């Protein structure tokens, strides 16, 4: 038998097993060894075939790629999204008559995301991500935007959106760096575009107990009930501790505390159970809070920090409080029930957030003290005077309820979804909530609904509609309409038409 015939024979056998061309060289050893054992091939003939396969593979595009020996797997991925967006924001009245109260705009936007996930020997793994746009809550680049020199066919910037590595065994995962959101959540509390940075630990509690109570190290397979803990120590704002610009008092040791770093601690217990055939329930109670460090440079830094200084968490040298408290101690409780409807995957889902320090946040941080009045003017100059708003228990709560049917995995798939939510002004962090619903404004309620259709296995067309209006009307004063004006909208309508191609 000639070598060429042997190679052809082996190739045919391998192909009949369904191997791809690039995988042939890697997967052929077992088959060749079996052929040698059965004396179909001699060892040398098998070696010749193996060498030919390796040579052929080396000539493929994949075979030319050289990776570090320590990498055990590498996944490259990305997506490009083309979006048309129309939004209409009707704001509450402002101090000057010429302020624009009704903003309408339509934008053509593009989003590019590139990623690489890799695993290494010994349980280590990591990933990097690049994307258009710098904002934490949006990777959209408005095409030919005049505001960032992209007009006239200018080019776009690329930013690092992920850079992390970690270690995992069967029950413990530890990750450090800028990473995908590790929490079970909805866009009520966390904008899905945000990749937080810090340290994260995930513990599969049941597998952990099994592993620690057994010397064999055998891990049980996934059962009908799963329980895990996710804890994040997330660096929200890092400050130079000696930054005297933070507080204008006497420069001494105490002033260093003025610039204490701001950390977000978020911990969540995720429990899921298969309660019936095809029905799974997941609940994920959690708690999130911030340390009282100074914060600057984020979109809502003014409204995020305290303004009144009535509570001294970290007193400066002369006893004056400074703007670092935020009174966000939020209990969260998202969950879902997944099941099938007419053979299609479906779920009802919910989310809930209650800021246990909502009253203090409304008064001390957001300045809704009920003291004094605010005068505003309509577009034609008519003045209106409103009292500065006071705290309401509705301010402390945010909730969402919704449903979705279908999924988008292959060509022809479709899905629809819809939800209703209310978001109190003191309920969530205005830096984290979804920037699309109500354009990110708080003290809003409304619906989000959409439909997705898979044109191909990798290309999905989507239409999403948002309609939001005030949760409480005439909330004037403080940070509601001043500062970062986090509740300055009366109503917001927004439409997004997307074409998203994944690769």
């Amino acid at each position, binding site marked *: 038998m000639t070598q060429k015939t042997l190679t052809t024979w082996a190739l045919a056998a391998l192909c009949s097993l369904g191997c791809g061309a690039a995988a042939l060289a890697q997967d052929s050893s077992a088959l060749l060894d079996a052929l040698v054992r059965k004396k179909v091939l001699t060892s*040398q003939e098998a*070696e010749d075939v193996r060498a030919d396969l390796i*040579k052929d593979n*080396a000539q493929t595009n994949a*075979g*030319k790629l050289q990776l570090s020996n320590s990498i055990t797997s590498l996944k490259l991925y990305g997506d490009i999204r083309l979006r048309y967006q129309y939004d209409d924001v009707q704001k509450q009245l402002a101090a000057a008559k010429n302020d624009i109260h009704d903003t309408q705009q339509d934008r053509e936007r593009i989003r590019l995301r590139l990623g690489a996930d890799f695993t290494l*020997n*010994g349980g280590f793994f990591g990933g990097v991500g690049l994307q258009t746009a710098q904002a934490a809550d949006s990777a959209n680049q408005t095409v030919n935007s005049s505001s960032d020199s992209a007009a006239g066919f200018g080019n776009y910037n690329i930013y690092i959106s992920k850079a992390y590595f970690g270690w995992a065994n069967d029950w413990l995962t530890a990750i450090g760096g800028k990473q995908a959101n590790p929490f079970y959540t909805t866009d009520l509390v966390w904008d899905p575009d945000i990749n937080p940075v810090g340290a994260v630990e995930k513990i599969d509690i049941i597998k952990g107990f099994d592993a620690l109570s057994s010397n064999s190290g055998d891990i049980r397979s996934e059962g009908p009930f799963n329980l895990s803990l996710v804890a994040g120590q997330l660096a929200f704002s890092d400050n130079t501790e000696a930054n005297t610009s933070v507080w204008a008092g006497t420069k001494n040791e105490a002033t260093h505390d003025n610039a204490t770093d701001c950390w977000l601690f978020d911990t969540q217990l995720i429990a899921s159970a298969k309660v019936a055939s095809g029905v799974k329930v997941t609940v994920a109670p959690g708690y999130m809070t911030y340390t009282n460090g100074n914060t600057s440079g984020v979109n809502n830094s003014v409204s995020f920090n305290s303004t009144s200084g009535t509570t001294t968490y970290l007193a400066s040298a002369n006893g004056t409080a400074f703007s670092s408290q935020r009174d966000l101690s939020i209990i969260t409780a998202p969950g879902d029930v997944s099941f099938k409807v007419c053979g299609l995957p479906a779920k009802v889902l919910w989310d809930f957030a209650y800021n246990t320090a909502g009253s203090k946040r409304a008064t001390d941080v957001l300045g809704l003290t009920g003291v004094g009045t605010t005068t505003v003017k309509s577009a034609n100059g008519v003045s209106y005077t409103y009292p500065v708003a006071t705290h309401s228990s509705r301010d402390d709560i945010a909730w969402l309820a919704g449903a979705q049917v279908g999924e988008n995995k292959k060509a022809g798939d479709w899905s629809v979804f819809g939800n209703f939510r209310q978001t109190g002004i003191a309920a969530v962090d205005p830096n984290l909530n979804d920037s699309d619903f109500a354009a990110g404004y708080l003290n809003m309620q409304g619906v989000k609904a959409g439909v997705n259709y898979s044109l191909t296995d990798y290309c999905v067309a989507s239409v999403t509609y948002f309609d939001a209006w005030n949760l409480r009307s005439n909330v004037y004063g403080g940070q509601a309409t001043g500062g970062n004006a986090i509740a300055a909208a009366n109503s917001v309508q927004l439409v997004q038409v997307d074409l998203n191609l994944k690769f």
Partner: protein
Amino acid sequence: MKTLIAFAAAIAASATMASAQQLVIKGSDTLGAKLVPQLAEAYKAENPGVTFSIAAEGSSTGFAALLDQTAHIGMASRRAKPTETSAALAKGLELRPTIVAWDGIAIILNSSNLLKGLTKKQVEQIFTGDITDWSAVGGAPGKISVYTRNTASGTYADFKELAMNKRDYAGSAQKMAGNEQIVSEVAKNPAGIGYVGLAYVKAPGVKVAPVDGKTPTQADVRDRSYPYSRPTFYYTNGAPAGATKSFVDFTLSAKGQKIVEQVGFVPVK
């Protein structure tokens, strides 16, 4: 002009080959420390016009020499890596393997070690550092001293694949340049453990530890029932020709394979 240069180069190359008849062989210490020198001596006895230059510094150096075209034969105790194959193709070369002998990587202990044997799992755990004390595998208490080959060695790579589930060596493992150095260190150290090719197991001061009850006998290596069995290779640029082919053929001949067996390897045929 190009034709002239090619013509001149061809004349120069043929003149070099004709006058020197020197075979340059580089690569694996497993093959190059004992077997290939003995084969070369026997071959020279029949072909006095041929001289040899043999350098045994690890399989990687053999592939590097083939890629640099500074060797006729690359000795290897492992297969060429895809990256080495790609690099060869990029230079217009083809790495062609010829199996010249079979080998079993033997686990060796100091002869004073009372341990009767190890399991495959225990071998993996010892060499990766999961187990660091002999008491964990049924031996007398004491810290385990692990000796391995260095990273240029084909045996180093083969052992990771065959015995360690491709995991990394323990950070405390001491890397040795050759099989003989490992034998020497394990013979001196009662807490030592290492691995060597079959040709190096009959040294004073060391003993072979059965793995899952199997010792690397000729029969077990030949039928691959010994878990750490492996072929060893001559790699050439394409099919061997000229003096290179003559030496490869001699290695595979009955006379050559007898030397293979005498040195301690398992013959191909």
